C-alpha cells in the first residue's frame, strides 16, 4: 500500500506535467489542425530560460553575459511569458504563410522548427546537462502522508500550478471574448473573419497560450529532475502528444485526463511490471496504439474529429515567394520533370553517369559519401511509397530499417558466429538471402503494424506510426538479451561476392548502386501497375477512391508492405556496410531526416528521394567547411532546418513536384481501357 501510494503520488506529479504540455498540443490542434511538434522544444526552452534567469551569468558563444539572478517564481513567470512570445513568433514565421499550403507543409515546417530550436539550444547551452539552481522552496522538508508517502513541497506546487492553469484556461476559452473568438476560428475561419474576428490573431493567441503552457511544464519538469538538457523536450513532448490524443485531441479536459492517466500508467508500470522502468516509455505508446485502434477519437474527443486532418496531404499550392524565386524553382522543377519523364534512355544515362562517377572518383571519402546518398535515397524511396504515392504520413518508417539491420546482424554475429562458430565467408550467400528475408520480415511487421492504422486518417495515422517507431527503438535499446541494447552489435561482416569480400569503398558503392537499381525498378514497376494507380487514387481522394470501388484498406496494406520491404532490404545492406549497429542509428530523428529527403526532392516521384539525399548528405559534408559550423557542429542541423523551412515556405510541394506520378499515367490507363 505504501509503495502503491508513493507510485501514485509520483504518477500524479508526472501526469500534471504531461497534462500541461498536452494542453499545448490540443489547443493549437483545435484551432489550426496542426500537430506542432515544436512544443517539445518550447518545453525545453522554458526550462533553460528559467535556469538562465535564475543565475547571475551565462556563457553566450564564449562571452559572459550578466543575468539578473531572479528568484524562482519570478524567473519562471518571465520564462513562460518569453516562451509565449516566442510561440507567436514561430507561428508568424513558420506556420502563418502555410495556412493554405498542402497539409504536409506545416507539419514538416514544425519538425524543422523543432530541429532548429534543439540545435540552437545545444549551441547556446551546450550538449551537457545543466544543473537546475537551488532555491528555497525546493529545500523544504517533504510532506509525509500516511507516515510513508513522501511528497516534496515543489511537487505540491507542480500539481497546484497545473490545476490552476488548467481551470483558468478552461474558463478563459469558455467565457472570454478572445476564447470565444478562438473557438469560432477553429470551427470556421472564414465565417469568423466575416464577423470581424481577426482570425490570425486568435491563432496567435492559441500559440502564445500553448507555448506558455509548454514552457511552464518544461520548467517544472526541469526543477523536478534537477537538470535541463537540449533534448529534454523530445520524449515528454511525444508523451504529451500521446496524452492529448489519448484524451481526445482538441479537448482541454481530455488533455488533462490523458496527461494524468499517462503519468499514472507510467509510474505504476515502472513500479509493478518486471523491468518496467526500462519499458515504461513503450507502455505509453502501446496504450496509445491500443486506444487509437479501439476509440480513435480519444476518451473525451468528438467523433467528428476522427478524421481530423483527413484529406489530401499534398494538395494545394505555394502562397509565398515572389517572382524571381518562384520562376527559378519552377525552372528547376521543370528540369526534374523532364529528367523523370524522358523515359528509358534517360534512366540508362543516369545509371551510366552513376557508374562512371564510381569509377573515376578517386577519393574514397567521396565514394563513401555517395554510398550514403544511395542508402538514404533508397530508404527515402521506401518511405516515398507510403507518403508520396499512397499519401499516408508515416513517422515510424525507421522501425523497418531497424528490423532489417538487426535481423541480419543478430543472425550473422550473435547466432552464426558466436553460438555456432560459423564464419561469414562460408555462408556468404546468406547475405543475399537475408536481403530478401529481412525485407519480407519487415514487410510482415509493417502489415501487422499497418492493420490497426487502416481506420485512421491524417494526423492520427502519423501519431500512431510514430508510436510504433518509438516502441521498436525502445525494445532495441532495452531487450539486451536479443540486441545487446545500447552497446550495439559490432563486427557485422562485410558482404562477400563469390569468395571475394566487398571491402573497398568503390566496391561498396557498386553494390549499393546495384541494389538501388533493383529497388527503383521494383518500385516503378509497382507504381505503374494497377496497384500504383490504386495508391495514387487513395492519395488524391480516399473517399472517392473507396466510392469507385478501390478496396482502400487492402491497397494501404500493400503500401505498408512494400515500404516495409524496402526498409528491411536496405537495413540488411546498411548493417553489413556500417559493420556496427546500435539503437542510436534508428532514432525518430533519422525518420524525420528521411521524410525530409522525400519532401525536399518531391513526394511521389522516383528521382525525388535521391535528389533529396544528394542535397542532404553533400550539404552535411560541405557545411563542415563553414567556420561557424566548425566551432559549433550542431548548427548544421539548424541550417538544415532553416533550409527545409524556406523550402516549405517557397515551395511546399517539393523541388520536383511536377514529376509526381499522377492519376492519369500515360500509357497505363489506355492499356487498361482497351
Amino acid at each position, binding site marked *: 500500500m505504501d509503495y502503491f501510494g508513493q507510485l501514485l503520488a509520483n504518477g500524479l506529479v508526472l501526469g500534471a506535467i504531461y497534462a500541461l504540455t498536452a494542453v499545448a498540443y490540443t489547443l493549437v490542434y483545435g484551432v489550426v489542425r496542426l500537430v506542432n511538434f515544436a512544443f517539445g522544444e518550447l518545453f525545453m526552452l522554458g526550462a533553460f530560460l528559467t535556469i538562465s534567469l535564475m543565475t547571475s551569468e551565462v556563457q553566450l558563444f564564449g562571452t559572459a553575459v550578466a543575468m539578473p539572478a531572479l528568484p524562482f517564481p519570478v524567473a519562471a513567470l518571465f520564462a513562460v511569458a518569453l516562451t509565449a512570445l516566442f510561440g507567436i513568433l514561430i507561428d508568424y514565421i513558420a506556420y502563418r504563410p502555410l495556412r493554405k499550403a498542402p497539409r504536409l507543409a506545416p507539419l514538416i515546417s514544425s519538425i524543422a522548427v523543432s530541429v532548429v530550436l534543439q540545435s540552437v539550444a545545444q549551441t547556446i547551452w551546450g550538449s551537457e546537462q545543466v544543473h537546475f539552481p537551488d532555491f528555497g522552496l525546493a529545500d523544504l522538508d517533504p510532506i509525509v502522508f500516511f507516515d510513508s508517502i513522501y511528497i516534496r513541497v515543489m511537487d505540491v506546487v507542480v500539481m497546484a500550478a497545473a490545476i490552476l492553469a488548467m481551470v483558468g484556461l478552461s474558463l478563459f476559452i469558455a467565457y472570454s*471574448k478572445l476564447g*470565444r*473568438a478562438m*473557438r*469560432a476560428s477553429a*470551427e*470556421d475561419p*472564414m*465565417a*469568423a*473573419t*466575416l*464577423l*470581424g*474576428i*481577426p*482570425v490570425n490573431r486568435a491563432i496567435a493567441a492559441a500559440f502564445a497560450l500553448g507555448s506558455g503552457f509548454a514552457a511552464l511544464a518544461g520548467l517544472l519538469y526541469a526543477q523536478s529532475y534537477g537538470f535541463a538538457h537540449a533534448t529534454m523536450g523530445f520524449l515528454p513532448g511525444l508523451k504529451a502528444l500521446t496524452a492529448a490524443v489519448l484524451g481526445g485531441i482538441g479537448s482541454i479536459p481530455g488533455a488533462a485526463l490523458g496527461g494524468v492517466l499517462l503519468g499514472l500508467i507510467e509510474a505504476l508500470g515502472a513500479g509493478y511490471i518486471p523491468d518496467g522502468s526500462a519499458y515504461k516509455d513503450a507502455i505509453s505508446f502501446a496504450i496509445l496504439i491500443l486506444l487509437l485502434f479501439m476509440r480513435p477519437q480519444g476518451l473525451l474527443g*468528438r467523433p467528428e474529429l476522427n478524421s481530423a486532418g483527413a484529406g489530401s496531404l499534398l494538395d494545394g499550392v505555394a502562397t509565398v515567394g515572389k517572382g524571381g524565386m518562384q520562376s527559378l524553382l519552377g525552372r528547376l522543377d521543370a528540369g526534374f520533370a523532364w529528367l523523370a519523364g524522358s523515359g528509358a534512355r534517360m534512366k540508362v544515362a543516369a545509371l551510366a553517369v552513376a557508374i562512371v562517377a564510381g569509377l573515376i572518383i578517386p577519393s574514397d571519402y567521396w565514394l563513401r559519401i555517395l554510398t550514403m546518398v544511395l542508402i538514404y535515397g533508397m530508404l527515402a524511396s521506401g518511405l516515398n511509397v507510403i507518403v508520396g504515392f499512397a499519401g499516408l504520413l508515416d513517422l515510424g518508417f525507421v522501425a523497418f530499417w531497424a528490423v532489417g539491420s538487426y535481423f541480419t546482424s543478430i543472425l550473422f554475429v550473435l547466432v552464426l558466429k558466436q553460438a555456432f562458430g560459423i564464419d561469414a565467408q562460408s555462408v556468404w550467400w546468406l547475405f543475399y538471402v537475408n536481403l530478401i528475408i529481412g525485407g519480407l520480415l519487415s514487410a510482415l511487421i509493417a502489415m501487422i503494424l499497418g492493420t490497426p492504422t487502416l481506420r485512421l486518417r491524417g494526423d492520427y495515422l502519423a501519431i500512431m506510426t510514430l508510436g510504433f517507431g518509438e516502441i521498436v527503438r525502445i525494445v532495441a535499446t532495452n531487450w539486451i538479451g536479443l540486441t545487446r541494447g545500447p552497446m550495439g552489435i559490432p563486427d557485422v561482416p562485410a558482404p562477400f561476392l563469390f569468395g571475394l569480400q566487398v571491402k573497398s569503398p568503390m566496391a561498396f558503392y557498386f553494390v549499393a548502386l546495384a541494389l538501388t537499381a533493383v529497388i527503383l525498378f521494383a518500385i516503378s514497376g509497382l507504381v505503374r501497375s494497377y496497384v500504383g494507380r490504386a495508391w495514387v487514387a487513395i492519395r488524391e481522394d480516399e473517399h472517392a477512391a473507396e466510392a469507385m470501388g478501390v478496396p482502400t484498406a487492402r491497397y494501404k496494406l500493400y503500401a505498408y508492405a512494400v515500404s516495409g520491404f524496402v526498409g528491411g532490404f536496405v537495413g540488411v545492406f546498411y548493417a553489413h556496410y556500417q559493420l556496427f549497429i546500435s539503437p542510436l542509428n534508428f532514432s525518430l530523428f533519422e525518420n524525420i531526416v528521411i521524410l525530409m529527403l522525400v519532401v525536399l526532392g518531391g513526394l511521389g516521384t522516383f528521382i525525388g528521394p535521391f535528389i533529396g539525399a544528394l542535397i542532404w548528405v553533400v550539404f552535411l559534408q560541405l557545411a563542415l567547411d563553414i567556420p561557424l559550423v566548425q566551432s559549433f557542429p550542431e548548427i548544421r542541423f539548424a541550417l538544415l532546418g532553416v533550409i527545409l523551412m524556406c523550402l516549405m515556405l517557397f515551395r511546399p510541394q517539393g523541388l520536383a513536384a511536377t514529376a509526381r506520378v499522377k492519376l492519369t499515367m500515360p500509357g497505363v490507363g489506355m492499356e487498361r481501357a482497351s
Partner: protein
Amino acid sequence: MNAPLTAPVPMPLLEIEDLHVNYGRIRAVDGLQMQVGSGTIVSLVGSNGAGKTTSLTALSGILPLSGGRIRFGGEDITHLAPELRVRRGIAHVPERRRLFPGMSVRENLVLGSYIRHDRHGIEQDIAVMVELFPILGDRFAQMAGTLSGGEQQMLAIARGLMSRPSLLVMDEPTMGLSPKMIDVILDTVQRINSQGTTVLLVEQNAIEAMRLSDHVYIMRLGRIVHQDTGARIDPELVKAFYMGEVL
C-alpha cells in the same frame, strides 16, 4: 465597363468599380460595376458560375482582387482587411450560412457582435433578434448544427445583424429552403430593410428577388449584362439571360 452607369439613387452607400477577380487564369469576375444606394434593396442575379458569390467574397475582403476599386460610405475600402470592413458596417451572411455548428445559438449571436463592446446593447440586440425570429428564442441553448435549414438561415441573418451593419450582404439566403420558408426569409429581408439597413442580395430565385428589390443587376460570365429598377425590369428578359438566350 460596358454597362451604362445610371446611379440608382443620389447617394450610393457602396460603389464597385471595374472589379476583377481571377482564379489562376480564369477570370471569375471581369470588370464588375455596381452601386448600392443607401437604404435600398439591390439584387444581383445570374445563373450558376456567373461570379456572384465570388464578387461578394471579394467585397468582404476574403478573396484578393486582381483589379478595381470598392468604395463604401464614400471611403475607399479596396485594401482594407476583412475584419475592418465588418467594423465599417458591412455584414456578410455567407452562402450555406456557415454557422458555428458546435456552439449554441446564443453563442453564435454573441459572436456576431464581436466588433462591439457595449455589453448592454448586445444583450438588447439579442432580444431584438428573438423578436425578429421568435423560434431562435426557443433554441437558445441548442447547438447551431442541430437546427433545421430554415432556422439556421434565420440564425445566420440574425448573427449578421448583431454587428449593427449599415449594409447587409446576403448570399443565397433561400437556398435549399421550402417555399414557405422562402417567403418568411424574404419577408424578413424586407422588414430589416424597412428599419433602415441597406441590403445587397444574391439570389437564384430571380423573380422573387426582383419583386422586393429597388434595383436589379444581372450578371453573366463575370460582368453586369443588364440592370434596371426592380419595378421596370422585364421578367422575360431575366429568364432569357438565365437560359443563355441573350448574350
